[in-house]
């Protein structure tokens, strides 16, 4: 028997590959009253809170959103069915494509800045013999800061006046003041830098945990073979972290595609829509541009984003399935 034969998802059912070839014992049907009396009831009761909470706070809103995307409603007066008109509205809105482009730009920049930084930090920290706990705490500290507080703090840093924090630092080395979030070109990278600072700590912890599972003898063997730090990272660390790296990558892409907080609090989508993202546009549909609240269009755009991300995730996992196994 090989482990691959038992891997879920293989063509043959698990029961068919029992080593002695005998038929597996027939399992009692789940849900029978006997099972409930033998402990299944307790399982069910334990399950109920989770099911109820998940149903009420996750699935019910999702179903409601799907229904609302086909309606014109302000949530006060009776809704009217409009079919796919909301989807047509959002897809015909030029701002949708601006938001899509900006969201993609944010995700790309976040990938370039934000993906390697935690990995490099984790690898370096794992090499440190002393004070590793201190470095870990320092790396995680930004995650502890409430996101709104962090953005308000960084607003001071990004003050475009010569007296702003970053501009003061630049002034020490003779660089003139920069506009940061007050300029359409510089605004999005500025947002990404803050977002990376705020989120990197969590990913560092994940990588550090994954690094502890790498067998030390692999590093010992590499050292015996004369490998230096970079070779060890290249041939031991990265291959061993492959599975975690693939998961964090797709989580980062999904997370950045739903970016809202930074553009909302830093720039409100400006200057001139240069930081307008999909979720910010959803917010504008629902709350900003129309007092009636175009909740139908808002949910329609949300569903479009959800479908895009679902398709992206499926394609990603299909492409990377072989690499990550």
């Amino acid at each position, binding site marked *: 028997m090989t482990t691959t034969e038992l891997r879920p998802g293989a063509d043959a059912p698990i029961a068919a590959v029992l080593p002695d070839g005998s038929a597996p014992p027939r399992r009692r049907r789940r849900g029978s009253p006997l099972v409930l009396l033998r402990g299944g009831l307790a399982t069910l009761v334990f399950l109920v809170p989770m099911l109820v*909470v998940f149903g009420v706070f996750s699935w019910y809103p999702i179903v409601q959103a799907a229904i609302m995307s086909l309606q014109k409603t302000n949530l*006060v007066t009776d809704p009217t069915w409009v079919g796919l008109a909301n989807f047509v509205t959002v897809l015909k809105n030029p701002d949708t494509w601006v938001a899509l482009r900006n969201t993609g730009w944010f995700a790309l920049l976040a990938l370039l800045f934000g993906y390697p930084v935690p990995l490099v930090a984790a690898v370096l920290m794992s090499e440190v013999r002393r004070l590793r706990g201190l470095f870990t705490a320092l790396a995680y500290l930004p995650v502890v800061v409430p996101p709104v507080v962090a953005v308000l703090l960084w607003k001071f840093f990004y003050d475009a*006046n010569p007296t702003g924090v970053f501009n003061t630092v630049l002034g020490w080395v003779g660089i003139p003041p920069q506009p940061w*979030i007050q300029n359409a070109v510089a605004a999005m990278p500025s947002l990404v830098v803050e977002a990376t600072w705020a989120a990197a700590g969590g990913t560092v912890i994940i990588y550090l945990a994954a690094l502890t599972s790498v067998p030390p003898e692999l590093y010992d063997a590499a050292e015996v073979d004369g490998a230096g730090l970079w070779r060890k990272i290249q041939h031991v660390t990265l291959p061993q972290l492959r599975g975690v790296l693939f998961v964090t990558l797709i989580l980062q892409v999904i997370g950045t595609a739903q970016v809202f907080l930074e553009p909302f609090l830093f720039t409100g989508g400006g200057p*001139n*829509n240069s930081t307008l993202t999909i979720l910010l546009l959803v917010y504008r549909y629902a*709350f900003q541009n129309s007092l009636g*609240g175009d909740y139908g269009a808002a949910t329609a755009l949300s569903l479009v984003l959800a479908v895009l991300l679902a398709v992206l995730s499926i394609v990603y996992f299909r492409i990377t399935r072989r690499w990550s196994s």
Partner: protein
Amino acid sequence: MKSSRRIAIAGLAALATAASLAACSPTPAATTADGKVDLRVVSLIPGSDQKAFDAFDAQVEQFEKANPDIHVTSEEYEWTGPTFAAQLAGGTLPDVFTIPFTDVQTLIANGQLADLTDEVNGLDYAASFNPNVLAVSSDAGGRIFGVPTAAYGNALHYNRALFEQAGLDPDSPPTTWDEVRADAKTIAEKTGKAGYATMTQNNTGGWQLAVATYARGGRLETVHGDTVTVTADNTGTKAALEYLHTLRWDDDAMGNNFLLDWGTINQAFGAGEIGMYTSGSDIYTNLVQAQKLDPATYGLTTLPLEGADAGVLTGGTVAAVNIKADDAHRAAAVKWIDFYYMQKLVNQDAAVLDAKTLSESDQPVGVPALPIFDQATLDTSREWVKDYINVPQDQVQFFLDGIFDQPILPEPKAHTQELYAALDNVVQAVLTDENADIDSLLTRVNTDVQALVDADA
């Protein structure tokens, strides 16, 4: 035993879940335990001075004493489009709330305000409202959905201390746009602060561009019968944007922050970072209550008007009632509106009591305003409280002397907030991109907003 203990724990978990879910949807008490109508009203802007809240609480106490069957519960409140829309949709608005003139007609059309016709018509002064003002909160059939409580004209606010620091005379504020530009440039050069600033975000950029447009004789929409045409590319708007472009890029007189809205520009002005900006004539209250403005530094004058059809964009506040309010709450709500917002305008005793209460808490009395009824009523009500007026009148006299000679104009009617939102981007583009193409930006606003207007037809 083990199993039954497990079931008991599981049962407790299920009960806790049910209790938590039940706690998520409390039903607000419509009446108090002793049978009084529990009326929820808005109070002051979050962050207001404690003395301001003390003054408000004192007024609540006076109201409850006069209406022993009503208990008032107050909530801090600042109208912003997004938070208001969320509260409206979520059903969490108090029974009485205030909204700007801009949005009343949209809310009436959407069926989101309570019909107050009977209650308002029962007020002594119902027939005395300025018809043009009352029309703001009435539908085409004359049904009344709110009570106009205050009106303002847009004006030029300036920081007298920065004027002095720059070597300018604060008692001789600018009277033309060229003078505004010259003073802004001087302030920026001499003090390092923004000589002139404008709002750009959350639809306020479009609002203030409308103010600048009207002041140059332009209009953002024209109405012929039932046909509305969006005219954002009019000469007044173009002139206003070119003016901003000159101040920003040629004079470097607008500072470095081009992402400002009503709240943040007030904050920056209160902190002494801005020399001049345009906004409603009534913001002195916010500047003192929430921004800790030193009254000695405040100056107010009229907008320069240039061009044949130039005028001052006006605005104001309407007190409205939650559409979900029942008869008892609606009646109590109008009593509160009458007491808190209106009596000080029509009743001498109430005016004096209101002014005395506010002044004892160092809150502004005598903020420049436009008449809700007529000029004589406004003058009389100011006369009643003249002993308590603490807004430095000599510093706002330029406005009071000039505003009543200026043409007062209402806001654009069709899709106002969407129009303002689209114009936000244009203002931001002009202030952050030296090569912004004003013509093409305005053409796009025309196209986008006209599509919304046409969709209504």
